């Protein structure tokens, strides 16, 4: 049962990712990415990270992807042109990506037994547990992160302002 759920939503992730790759219009890519995000949220749930699943949906697909969509619509991005600006990307890039996949897959599958397995409900992290760590041991990074967001806001505003 667990395996089936994993396969379905894992498959959805991969399908969405492939769609992002193959679509020509950026808005289609954006929507596929939302699919990927949401499937990932389910996978987090399967792994017992309930807060993260919620955060994934709210922050990633609900805020970030919406932002992307806004920008695509703002800039009126059209279908992609077919330009070939760089040979290096094809010559070294694809072998590189393939090599990455190959090596990683090999390593993970080799170590399959060492890595153990996940049971549904085997490790559940409640929001309570998460916040206990976050607000006690990691309070400083937490506050610093809020400063980071402030800086990002300022940066975004400064960069995207209309020149007068």
């Amino acid at each position, binding site marked *: 049962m667990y395996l089936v759920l994993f396969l379905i939503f894992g498959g959805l992730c991969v399908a969405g990712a492939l769609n992002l790759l193959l679509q020509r219009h950026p808005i289609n890519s954006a929507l596929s990415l939302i699919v990927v995000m949401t499937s990932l949220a389910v996978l987090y749930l399967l792994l017992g990270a309930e807060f993260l699943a919620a955060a994934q949906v709210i922050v990633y697909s609900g805020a970030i992807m919406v932002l992307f969509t806004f920008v695509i619509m703002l800039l009126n991005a059209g279908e992609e042109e077919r330009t070939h*600006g*760089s*040979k*290096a*990307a*094809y*010559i*070294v*890039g694809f*072998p*590189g*990506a393939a*090599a*990455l996949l190959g*090596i*990683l897959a090999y*390593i993970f599958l080799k*170590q399959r037994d*060492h890595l153990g397995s996940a049971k549904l409900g085997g490790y559940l992290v409640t929001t309570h547990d998460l916040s206990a760590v976050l607000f006690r041991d990691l309070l400083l990074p937490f506050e610093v992160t809020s400063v980071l967001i402030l800086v990002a806001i300022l940066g975004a505003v400064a960069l995207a302002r209309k020149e007068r």
Partner: protein
Amino acid sequence: MTSSLHLWLIPLVPFAGFLVNGLLGRRLPKWLVTTVAWVATLIPFLQVLNIVLHYSSLTLPYTENVGTWITAGGFHADFAFAFDQLTLIMLLVVTGVGFLIHLYSAGYMAHEEGYWRFFAYLNLFMFFMLTLVLAENFLLMFVGWEGVGLASYLLIGFYFTRDSAAKAGIKAFVVNRIGDFGFLLAMFLLIAHFGTLSFGQIFTQVAQHPELQGGFLTAVALFLILGATGKSAQIPLYVWLPDAMEGPTPVSALIHAATMVTAGVYMVARTHLIFDRSPFALTTLAIIGAATALFAATIGLVQTDIKRVLAYSTVSQLGYMFLACGVAAYSSGIFHLLTHAFFKALLFLGAGSVIHSLSGEQDMRVMGGLRKKIPITFWTMTMAVLAICGIPPFAGFFSKDEILYQAFVSPGPVGKIVWFVGLFTAGLTAFYMFRLWYLTFFGESRAPETTHDDHGHEHAHGVHESPWIMLGPLVILAILSVIGGWVGVPEAMGGHAEITHFLAPVTQPVGEAAEGSNSQELLLAAVSVACVAIGWFLAHLMYFAKPELPAQLAAKVRGLYTLLLHKYWVDELYGALIVTPILLLSRYVLKGLLDTGVITGGGLVLGYSAQGIGSLVQRIQSGNIRSYAGWLAIGAAALLLLTYFGFGTHLSF
């Protein structure tokens, strides 16, 4: 306990004079330059006189350590000065004769460009020579040794616009360097065996180990001899001295007659303890000295330039001094050094006076009849000629005869051989000195009507006596040439041999002293005087009584005459054997192959390859984000590979 003699002041005052004249002299008025130079030489002389006055209250030997110089590992060398009887004699010669020559030069160089430069160099020379004489260890002596070579180069090449002068300067320096190489090797050997270069320590160690004979001490002695042949112009490194006559005459008097060339003799006398342990080195020294004496005298027979004759005469007389050291009669060698300083300096200064009065003429063939025109110069030079020929009771007689006597009575067959060579050379010396005397001062004047002037002087017509500033030193030196030998009158002739006894604490050779008898000494003296008389008679015959005789004789022995005239073609020989191959090697192999090819080429290769690699790598910077991503991807894959497979780490958990 002696209070401090402040020996360090003695060299330092001339150095201060050099700094003042060297740095500021160009802008100073001439009288100030002269005063600085004179004062810088007078003060050391007065200080030495002061030491003489307090001599009886001194405990000798006296050393003075001014500061540490080198401490490296186990080796230690200081700026240390030493003073003993030998130093005193040398100091008197250097400062005394040096001061007289400074006086003379003010008159001789009065109209020269670069007057300030001359006196600056002269003071620099005094500084180095005094350092050499006062040094307490080999290293400080070497500083002085090298420094006088440098000063000699600067002064020989004083008229640097003249090609021959510049070349002569370089020749002197390079040939000296070869000798210095020997000195260096000797120092290295001494450090290797004794661990120190201090005279006191080395000599104490040598004295305490009577079993140290030959072996490495011979090597040290031979290397020191090499150094001495360079500095004191003996065979095979004498070739620079005749060419050194390109420099101004006071330079020839000071450096190449009285002081620098005697540094080799002083060094041998100072280190005689080492030489005493090596009979082989002593014999070598005696043979070199005798051979050089004879060799140079034969060349001097036929030279026509008045200064050249005197130069070869210097080489020959230095040969006598080395001969003396070679038979372990070190005090005799120093005695001859003392008297030679007087009469040779006088000869050179007198020659300078002659040249000055003739407005630059140096060739004896166009001199003559100057006896009446420059009488003071004539009479002082006569004193010098009589002294050098060894005619009693002038200075040279006592010193030269002492040497010949010591050679004759020294044990072994070498003594007799070198005695005979020395005797024969004495005859030759008399011949060429009186030849010079007759050609210059007697007979009819052979000078052409117009006197050309290559000396830079503007003179009115006619031959005239030199100014008193030049004649004064001549007179003083003449007096010394007469009485200077009276400090060494041997007992055989009724004297007390003061100088030998005075130097005995320093120069007494270890081992058996040669013993002769008084009658032997008198007999030998008579024989040498007879030889000298023969030489004088022949000169009188050929250059006064029958002036056409020399040309006839030269025609009869054409080959021999040409050989002597061309100085045995030694310079040409050295040129072909040594100089030319080195120049070719340097020019084609070292410069062409190594310098241009390897070094410059290597540099160029580095530069071009850096450029090439740079232009290749530049292509990665295309500005295109996707190509950057491509390189990133492949790089990440490579890193991953390396991490998992490369470092031998297999993830296990």
